[in-house]
């Protein structure tokens, strides 16, 4: 079976109609991964046993002629920050190098309940901290569109696996752009849902007020199917919203004519590469051609988003990562002298450079004498940034801009300059601070043959509308 451009519906139909079996399909993905992934590095671990058991279950349902669930036999991958019972889960960190979780992440469990076959665990920046995937403690990921370039981060493996047809779709996590930016760099669709839309139970926490789980896919429709499967209230996550989950795929065909599209000048300022700007402007023209009304809006506090984000995110990270104490799980240093020495040396050996930097920055921002000036200040600015969106959404249905100021940069280009790396997230962190949904879709190719992504923001809990716009754009191509 040709795996190129294989969508969820096509994969499911092939299994349901008996053109292939779920087992054969999973085997062809494993073969593809074994032949192509050594040069890309998207998988950290394959879960063959679990995948083939699930595939066999689906195949026996097919044989019995029973009704098949919506993702029956569809091969997927999940980011290695999502815990999987009995399958090693590292969060890209040496400190969890041997961790075998005793439970399943809700989002992963929901995919499997829907019949999906989870092929394995995808590479990422350590604890999802990074914008290039170069902070993985195990290996970097190479962008399948150009192996000298980064795939983006932190969900670099999740984006690369979809782009290189090593999974039909994948799950990633997005704390400041970690789904949307790699989707844009690899030329695939990436959706960050509204904060609260998807349970985070079993997501290894980075910054709890900003973390989201969401899908990568080849098409808007596949992203819609994935979101519907994982979304909805979960008693195991008190932040998950008790709201009805629409049938996003069915909503795609709804009329979008007359939709009001906001464009904020703050997303087209200094630092935006001309080619990226041109691609977004061309895409906006196309939407105008579909009868959309393009409206200027203002998000005046945008330039304060990165500083506010890096204070809030690191403060929360320093607290979340305090749990790595080398007692209940995780790496413990050898030959320690006493408890305090054990904590320090285990954490020193287990955490990589960027993780330590963020723990230090966050601890500093929360420390006595600095809390008001840094953490509290950032939280107040977060209110302003959120109000910007709330005001703008009184006038428009969606807001559109670039996902990233540039296409994929080269491996090694920004590793020695943390601030330059942070600025790669300039257009994405705002959605996390405000809690709104955002989707990145491919809209062009640069002269250097690199994908360019466009971002569509929506109102809180209105993923249906951004998916419809993404779908309408795709169809107009």
């Amino acid at each position, binding site marked *: 079976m040709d795996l190129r451009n294989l969508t969820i519906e096509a994969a499911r139909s092939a299994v349901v109609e008996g053109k292939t079996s779920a087992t054969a399909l999973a085997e062809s993905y494993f073969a593809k991964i074994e032949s192509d992934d050594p040069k890309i590095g998207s998988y950290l671990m394959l879960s063959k046993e679990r995948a083939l058991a699930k595939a066999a279950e689906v195949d026996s349902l097919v044989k019995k002629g029973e009704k098949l669930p919506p993702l029956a036999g569809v091969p997927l991958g999940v980011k290695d920050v999502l815990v999987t019972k009995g399958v090693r889960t590292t969060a890209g960190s040496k400190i969890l190098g041997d961790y075998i979780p005793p439970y399943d992440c809700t989002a992963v469990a929901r995919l499997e309940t829907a019949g999906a076959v989870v092929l394995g665990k995808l590479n990422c920046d350590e604890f999802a901290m990074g914008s290039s995937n170069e902070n993985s403690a195990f290996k970097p990921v190479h962008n399948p569109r150009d192996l000298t370039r980064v795939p983006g981060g932190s969900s670099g493996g999740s984006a690369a696996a979809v782009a290189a047809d090593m999974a039909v779709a994948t799950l990633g996590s997005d704390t400041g752009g970690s789904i949307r930016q790699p989707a844009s760099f690899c030329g695939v669709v990436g959706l960050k849902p509204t904060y609260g839309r998807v349970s985070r139970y079993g997501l290894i926490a980075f910054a709890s007020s900003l973390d989201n789980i969401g899908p990568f896919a080849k098409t808007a429709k596949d992203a819609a199917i994935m979101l519907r499967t994982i979304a909805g209230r979960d008693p195991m996550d008190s932040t998950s919203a008790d709201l009805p989950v629409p049938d996003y795929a069915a909503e795609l065909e709804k009329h979008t004519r007359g939709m009001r599209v906001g464009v904020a000048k703050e997303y087209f300022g200094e630092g935006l590469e001309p080619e990226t700007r041109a691609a977004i402007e061309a895409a906006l023209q196309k939407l105008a051609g579909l009868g959309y009304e393009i409206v200027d809006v203002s998000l005046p506090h945008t330039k304060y988003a990165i500083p506010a984000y890096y204070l809030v995110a690191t403060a929360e990270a320093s607290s979340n990562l305090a749990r790595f104490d080398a007692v*209940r799980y995780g790496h413990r240093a050898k030959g320690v002298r006493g408890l305090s020495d054990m904590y320090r040396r285990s954490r020193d050996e287990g955490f990589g450079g960027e993780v330590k930097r963020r723990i230090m920055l966050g601890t500093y921002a929360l420390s006595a004498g600095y809390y008001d000036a840094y953490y509290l200040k*950032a939280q107040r600015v977060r209110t302003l940034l959120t109000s910007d969106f709330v005001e703008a959404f009184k006038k428009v249905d969606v807001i559109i801009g670039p996902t990233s100021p540039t296409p994929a940069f080269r491996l090694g280009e920004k590793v020695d300059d943390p601030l330059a790396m942070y600025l790669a997230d300039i257009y994405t962190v705002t959605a996390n601070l405000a809690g709104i949904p955002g989707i990145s879709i491919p809209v062009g190719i640069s002269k250097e043959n690199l994908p360019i992504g466009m971002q569509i923001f929506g109102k809180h809990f209105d993923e249906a509308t951004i998916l419809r716009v993404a779908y309408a754009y795709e169809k107009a191509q």
Partner: protein
Amino acid sequence: MKVTDKDVAYVADLANLELTEQERARMVRDLNSILAYVDSLNELGTDNVPPMAQVSDRFGLDDSKQGSERFAYASRPDVHQGLRKSLAHDVALGNAPDTDGTFFKVPKVIEK
């Protein structure tokens, strides 16, 4: 320079990190560069702006109620036996670096 060697040593201590000489020197440089950048937040007057700790501070809560009642959407009725069974003992200990089969083992807690 806002952050000194001494600050880095103090914060590392709070964060239960040791850091090598080299890492500490790099940390002084990086923290200063990042903090200089975040200083731009001070351009904004925020005295009358409430802090936002959670998205639900602004969305999803029931404004007609008072105090923690406003977050009632996130609560559930109390149950006597808990929501689910705990992990089995051996499973809970399964990932521990050191155990005696019943408890987690750690080095001596009381130090000189």
